[in-house]
C-alpha cells in the first residue's frame, strides 16, 4: 500500500532531520564557552583559589574532559531517554520546567490555532464570494492590517487600552486562576486576539485568491448545473480544492508564529510559557534549558512539516505516493 509506505518514509525523514539539527546544536554548544566553567573560575579566583584547578574540577564533574565523540554519544542517549539535564536557573529538571511552560503556552496556543484554521479559510472564501464588495474590502483591510502590524507592538497597544486605561483585563498574567474559568478566559482574550489577527491575514489572502480561482471553475459550474445548493457548492466544490494549497501556507504560518511571535507575546503579557522560558534561559546562560527549549521548537517544526506533507497528499488525490 503506497500510502503506508509514504508515511513511513516521511516519518523516517523527520527523524533524520531532527538528528541533524540536534548534531548541529551539539557542535555549537561544544565550541561555545561554558558559563558554568567560567563561573567556577571566577569564584575560585575571588576566593583566592586556583582558577585552573577549579576549571579542571568542573570540567571533570560535567564530563567535559571526555573526548568529543564520547560526549556526543552521551548527549544523544540522554536526549533519547528524556534526561535533558538540570536547569540551574529554575533549580529543577529541564523536562519539568518545559512541561510547566508548555502548560501555559498551550492555554493560548490551542484556541489561537483552532480559531485561525477555522476563521482564516472561511473569511477568505466569503471575501472571494463577495469579491470587490465593501465586505471584501473590509476583510482585505483587516487582513493587511493584521499581517502588517508587528504583533508585540499591537499587543502593547491593546494592553495599554484595555488593561491600563479601561481596566477590563489584568495587565499581569495570573497563574493562580484555574485553567477553565472566566478569569482565565478574560486574561487570554488579548494574546489570542493578537495572534489570530497576525496569522489569519495571510491565510485569508491565500484562501481568497485560491478560491477565486475555483469560483469560476468549470467544475463549479457543473455542480450548479446539477442543482447542488450554493452552500454545498462553496463547502465541497470550492473550499475543498482550496484547502490543498492552503494547508501548506497554514502550517508554515502557524509554525512561524509559534516559534517567533509567541516569544514576544509571552514577554509582553508576562505569560510563563515556552517562549519566555527560552528567552530567560538565554539571558541567564542556562545551557541545558536553552537546549531543551530549542529541542521542543525543533520537534514542533518537524512534526508540523510532517503533517503538512501528509495532509497535502491526502487532500489532493492527484498526488501519488509512489516514487517519493
Amino acid at each position, binding site marked *: 500500500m503506497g500510502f503506508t509506505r509514504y508515511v513511513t518514509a516521511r516519518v523516517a525523514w523527520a527523524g533524520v532531520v531532527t538528528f541533524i539539527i540536534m548534531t548541529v546544536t551539539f557542535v555549537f554548544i561544544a565550541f561555545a564557552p561554558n558559563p558554568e566553567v567560567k563561573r567556577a573560575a571566577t569564584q575560585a579566583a575571588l576566593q583566592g583559589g586556583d582558577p585552573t584547578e577549579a576549571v579542571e574540577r568542573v570540567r571533570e564533574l560535567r564530563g567535559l574532559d571526555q573526548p568529543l565523540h564520547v560526549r556526543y554519544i552521551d548527549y544523544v542517549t540522554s536526549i533519547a531517554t528524556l534526561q535533558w539535564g538540570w536547569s540551574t536557573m529554575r533549580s529543577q529538571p529541564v523536562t519539568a520546567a518545559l512541561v510547566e511552560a508548555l502548560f501555559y503556552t498551550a492555554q493560548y496556543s490551542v484556541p489561537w490555532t483552532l480559531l485561525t484554521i477555522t476563521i482564516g479559510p472561511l473569511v477568505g472564501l466569503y471575501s472571494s464570494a463577495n469579491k470587490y464588495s465593501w465586505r471584501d474590502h473590509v476583510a482585505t483591510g483587516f487582513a493587511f492590517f493584521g499581517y502588517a502590524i508587528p504583533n508585540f507592538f499591537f499587543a502593547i497597544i491593546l494592553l495599554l487600552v484595555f488593561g491600563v486605561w479601561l481596566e477590563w483585563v489584568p495587565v499581569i498574567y495570573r497563574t493562580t486562576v484555574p485553567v477553565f474559568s472566566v478569569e482565565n478566559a478574560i486574561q487570554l482574550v488579548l494574546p489570542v486576539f493578537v495572534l489570530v489577527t497576525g496569522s489569519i491575514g495571510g491565510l485569508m489572502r491565500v484562501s481568497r485568491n485560491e478560491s477565486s480561482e475555483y469560483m469560476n471553475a468549470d*467544475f463549479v*459550474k*457543473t455542480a450548479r448545473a*446539477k*442543482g447542488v445548493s450554493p452552500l454545498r457548492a462553496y463547502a*465541497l466544490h470550492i473550499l*475543498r*480544492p482550496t484547502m490543498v494549497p492552503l494547508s501548506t501556507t497554514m502550517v508554515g504560518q502557524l509554525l512561524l508564529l509559534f516559534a517567533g511571535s509567541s516569544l514576544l507575546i509571552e514577554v509582553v503579557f508576562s505569560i510563563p510559557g515556552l517562549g519566555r522560558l527560552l528567552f530567560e534561559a538565554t539571558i541567564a546562560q542556562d545551557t541545558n534549558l536553552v537546549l531543551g527549549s530549542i529541542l521542543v521548537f525543533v520537534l514542533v517544526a518537524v512534526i508540523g512539516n510532517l503533517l503538512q506533507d501528509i495532509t497535502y497528499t491526502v487532500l489532493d488525490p492527484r498526488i501519488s505516493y509512489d516514487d517519493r
Partner: protein
Amino acid sequence: MSAGFDAGAGEPPLLEVENLRTTFSTEAGELVAVDGVDFSVEDGETVCVVGESGSGKTVATESITRLVDTPPGTITGSTRYRGRDLQVMSADELRSVRGNNIAHIFQNPQEAMNHCFTVGWQIVEALQAHQNVPDEEARERAVDLLDRVGIANASSRFDDYPHEFSGGQKQRAMIAMALVGNPDLLIADEPTTALDVTVQGQILELLNDLQEEYGMGILLVTHDLGVVAQVADRIVVMYAGKVMERGDVYDIFERPAHPYTQALMRCLPGKGEDTRGIPGSLPDPTTPPDGCRFAGRCEHAIGECEIGDQPDETSVDTDHAVSCVYYQQGYDTATVRDETLETDTGDERGASDD
C-alpha cells in the same frame, strides 16, 4: 434521429426561448453577448445552435438556466421550461429544475469534474441533489449508467478520480452524470470539441442512442457542421449574438438562405473551392454595428444592410426563416442564393439522416 412530434394543444413546449438578451458589464462598456434570440426545443428532437466561436452560442445556452454569473452578466427575456419561466423563478425552484429536468454537458471534460472527488461520488451527488436515494442504491444506479455510457469495469471505475479517466471517458462520465436525474432536456455545449476525432463520433453516437432511449430533447451547441448534419433535426444559425437563420436540417443544408450560413457551408471540406474561411472577423461586441451584424463581412452587402437594426426574420419556407434584407419585399432573392451550394448539398450531406 426522429423529428420532434407535435405537442398536444395546450401542452407547453419543452423549451421556449424568447427575446433572450445577455449582456456583461465590462470595463470597456456593456458587452452584448446574446442579443434578442428566440428558439424552441420540442420533446425528443435535437436542435443545433451553430456559428463561429464568439457568436454567443455558449452564453445563450448557459443563460437558459441562469448559469451565467449575474453580476457581471444581465439576462433579460424569457426561457420557459414547459411554460415555467426560468428567468423569474426563485433560486430554490430553479435548483430543482437544474440537473433534474434540464441537464448540462460542457465543452471541456478535463475541467468539468472536481479533481478532489471520485467520479462516482460526483454522479451520486447529482442524483441525491434531487432525490432522496440511499447511498447503496445511488451507487448502483451510477454504476449502471457508467456501464451504459460505455465505461468498462464500471463498478471498479466508480471509485476512480477524474484524473484517472481519459478525456473521452470523462465526457462519457459527464453524460452519465447528466442522465442520472432522467432529464427531459439535455443542453450539450460543444461536447466533442475537446476530444480527438475518433472519440467524437463515439460520443455523438452515444448521445443519439441515449436520446432515443430516454426520449429527451437535446440542445446541441457546435461549430462543427459535420456534427450538425449527423444529428440535427433543426438548426439555429447564430452570428454576433443574433439569429441569422433557422430551419430544419434539410432546409439549411440544401438551401442555405443567409449569406453567413452559405459562407459556413463553403467552409466544409468538399463544399466548393472556398477553404480560406470567412474573411474578416466578428464585430466588437461592446459596440455592435447598425443593421445586419454580418454586413461587414458579407459580399452582397448594400447600403440598407448597415442601417437600423438586424433585419426582421422573413419566412422563406415553412419552418425556415432568415434575417436578411434580400428576403424582404422589394429585393431580389436571387442575388444571395448560391446555386452551387444548393445542388451540391442535396445529395451529399443534407440527407445523411442515420
